[in-house]
């Protein structure tokens, strides 16, 4: 260094502060993480909900549809009939109200139908799989197996495919043109569906068709029945038969004063169907109090809006002529100490009825397995292991027939899981589910940054118009509203490129890599203050101790 050429009193060249690697101050290091959003974790079909909402936010509806259908082939169906546990888990619920995930799913499903987007099957693997039952689990499994390249044949005992979607869910919740269109799309991938074909002997059918593997998705078709004391002079029907007969347009038996016994969603379906078929007076009798009925709140509310009466804390003791005797129940004060929650009071009242419908649950029909001794049943369902294989090698079971939550959504999830397990089994491997990331809980987020945005309400058909027919009750979202609702997603646990970390670092120690590529830390300069972690709206940064 030559001192003489510098101005007076200056002895050193000007240096940049870049020489000063302040990263050495750090004791905690920020890292970018991906956390599992609660919606994705809760979805029984394992959808990447946050992922497709993100694409919908950008109006990339085809991208959203493709990502959604990676896990669930039926967005237009599920956007109507899913009970959306995702919304119950949504972190936005801690801020205002959960994102209307279900309504956006329906919108995306609708886009798929309007634009006629189709699925692609993978290249032929040479393997053949037989599926018994074309309900939601069977169709879902068929779809996923075709995506693996396996040939699929479904045998269905009924005259149309769809299972409970068709014969259990009334039209006012699921219009049949939507159901048919989405089933057709799966058939269009090369899935063969043989209708009116009941499999009596699984092993013989497997051998005869040369199938490498079998998946049983027969559902829970056998209604639980009760016999009552007394001398009944009215028809006692079961919910499944009533709903199936309605679908098949058989002569209506729901005439006059209809009493439905049960507190679940099927009971509501029957009551609402009865109203639509012109029953004079519809009453639902539930053993439970309103807060503990198994039916979903909105189902109960819509049922009551349509004029049905819900009678809580009653059980049927006897039926004599047209007179139903109800015992008045109460919630036991000692129920925490092991007693039944609801107990009888010994007091009775009566109810006049012309028809009684029992909606008290269903189970797997054991008759189906009389010729298949190797397949064990357990507690009214088929016994399966962690990869959904029954006690017989190469035969798997999914949906309501296997132990499950008994919802359409969990059936779709079962279909996917069993397809993956069968795919692994066909390759001589054992299916291993991918490990899950840490959950993105609300306390890891900074909600201040999210704009205030009240939840969009889907249009509902007026109660008076609902009663006169089977028109769909809940309407579609307008495109603008769907985009808005998608944008209410907070992207919990996964970076959505808001630039907060990049902007607020006092040391300019974050590099922005450009849209879609995220950011990286410049650890040479990061002092480890942790502001990026505190101010990350969605909780996609974690501070970890440095090795010192």
């Amino acid at each position, binding site marked *: 260094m030559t001192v003489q050429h510098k101005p007076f009193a200056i002895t*050193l*060249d*000007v*240096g*940049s*502060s*870049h*020489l*000063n*690697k*302040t990263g050495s*101050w750090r004791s905690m290091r920020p890292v970018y993480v991906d956390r599992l959003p609660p919606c994705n974790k809760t979805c029984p079909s394992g959808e990447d909900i946050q992922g497709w909402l993100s694409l919908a*936010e*950008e109006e990339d509806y085809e991208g959203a549809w493709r990502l959604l259908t990676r896990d669930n082939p039926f967005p237009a169906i599920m956007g109507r009939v899913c009970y959306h546990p995702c919304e119950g888990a949504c972190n936005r619920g801690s801020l205002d109200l959960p994102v209307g995930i279900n309504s956006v799913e329906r919108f995306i499903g609708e886009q798929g139908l309007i634009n006629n987007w189709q699925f692609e099957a993978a290249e032929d693997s040479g393997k053949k799989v037989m599926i018994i039952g074309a309900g939601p689990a069977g169709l879902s499994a068929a779809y996923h197996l075709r995506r693996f390249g396996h040939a699929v044949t479904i045998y269905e005992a009924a005259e149309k495919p769809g299972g409970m979607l068709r014969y259990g869910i009334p039209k006012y919740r699921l219009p049949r043109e939507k159901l048919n269109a989405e089933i057709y799309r799966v058939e269009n991938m090369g899935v063969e569906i043989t209708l009116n074909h009941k499999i009596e002997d699984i092993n013989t059918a497997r051998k005869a068709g040369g199938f490498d593997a079998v998946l049983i998705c027969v559902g829970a078709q056998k209604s639980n029945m009760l016999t009552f004391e007394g001398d009944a002079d009215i028809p006692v029907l079961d919910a499944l038969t009533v709903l199936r007969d309605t679908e098949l347009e058989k002569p209506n038996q729901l005439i006059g004063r209809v009493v439905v016994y049960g507190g679940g969603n099927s009971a509501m379906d029957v009551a609402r169907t009865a109203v639509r078929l012109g029953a004079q007076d519809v009453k639902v009798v539930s053993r439970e109090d309103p807060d503990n009925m198994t039916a979903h709140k909105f189902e109960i509310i819509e049922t009551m809006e349509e004029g049905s009466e819900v009678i809580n804390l009653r059980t049927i003791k006897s039926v004599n002529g047209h007179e139903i005797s109800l015992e008045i129940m109460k919630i036991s004060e000692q129920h925490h100490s092991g007693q039944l929650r609801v107990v009888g009071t010994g007091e009775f009242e009566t109810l006049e009825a012309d028809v009684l419908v029992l909606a008290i649950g269903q189970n797997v029909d054991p008759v189906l397995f009389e010729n298949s001794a190797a397949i064990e049943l357990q507690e009214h369902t088929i016994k399966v292991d962690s990869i959904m294989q029954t006690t017989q090698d190469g035969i798997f079971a999914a949906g309501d027939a296997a132990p499950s939550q008994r919802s359409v959504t969990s059936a779709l999830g079962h279909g996917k899981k069993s397809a993956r397990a069968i795919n692994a089994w066909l390759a001589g491997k054992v299916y291993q589910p991918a490990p899950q990331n840490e959950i993105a809980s609300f306390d890891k987020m*900074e909600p*201040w*940054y*999210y*704009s*205030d*945005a009240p939840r969009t309400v889907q249009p509902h058909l007026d109660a008076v118009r609902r009663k006169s027919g089977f028109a769909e009750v809940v309407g579609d979202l307008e495109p603008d509203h769907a985009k*808005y609702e998608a*944008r*209410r*997603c*907070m*992207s919990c646990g996964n970076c*959505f*490129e*808001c*630039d*907060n970390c*990049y*902007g*607020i*670092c*006092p*040391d*300019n*120690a974050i590099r*922005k890599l*450009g*849209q879609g590529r995220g950011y990286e830390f*410049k650890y*040479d*300069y990061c*002092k*480890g*203050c*942790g*502001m990026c*972690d*505190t*101010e990350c*709206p969605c909780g996609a940064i974690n501070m970890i101790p440095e090795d010192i």
Partner: protein
Amino acid sequence: MSKEETSTLNPSSRQTVKFYQTGTFTVGNRLLDEEFRTVQATTERSNSLDSGHRACQGCGQALGARYALDAAMRATDNKIIAANATGCLEVFTTPYPETAWSIPWVHSLFGNVAAVASGIAAALKSKGDSTTRVIAQGGDGGTTDIGFGCLSGMFDRNDDVLYICYDNGGYMNTGVQRSSATPAAARTATTMPVGDNPGSSFNTGKYLPTIAMAHEIPYVATASVHDLHDLERKVEKAMTFRGARYIHINVPCPLGWGSQPAFTIKLSRMGVECGLVPLFEAENGQLTDSTKIRYRIPVEEYLKLQRRFAHVLKPHNTHQLDAIRAIAENNIKRFNLL
């Protein structure tokens, strides 16, 4: 975005009819048009104050200075000269022979930065250069105490300088002594928490934004580092005026406030949301606009994250807490913050 459009982005209309997930509350937002994103969201930002400076972890002033100068750089097409009073900002950026500044920058004495900036503005005028703009900047000590005379003179002459004060409420790099901008009740090395009225005395100190307004200069604004869109808009708006302008930026100081470095932005936000830090704008001495509180919080939420106020939350000091609540209440009324 042109300056005119920027200045019409009224703070109360920031959340307009369209909905963009985080709207304009985060630094950037992939759903917003590029022209509505902040300077800090772009990879082209100047980084006027760059990595390697020696500010403490989580320094609010280092952040505020980069925010303000990068916005000014964009607004003037990179034609900025900055004069810097002695203080934290000068000490941590320019330990001889290093500099963290990537703009033309000169260090003045503690008390004369406004005069130095006036001189630079005069020199540019005599050279006929009307595009290069001058910024003077300093901490609250160099502004409200030591440099107050020179600053008042600069306002008086309406010299074409934007003066930015980064207010962290004390002389922090010399060991946290009280300045006339230290808030009431705050503990500093010279206002210890002892006696009946521990910490800095009530009914003392001065609030420079309203003093600047009293000079009836073209533009006065207050800003806070948690609300970047608001801060950048005010800096860019200031550059549309000629004459003396003043921006007072609230910058939390983990060292002097006794707060976690990770909470700098959070405290900046909470200060505004509880009403103790009003954000407003004034032109020619008249209040023109104020940034509304989004979710009002009690002042104790803000105070409890700072050790300098620990004594205020003790049961025998409720009179201090009540007095601080009254200050927040008064700000809310005076500047129309709700």
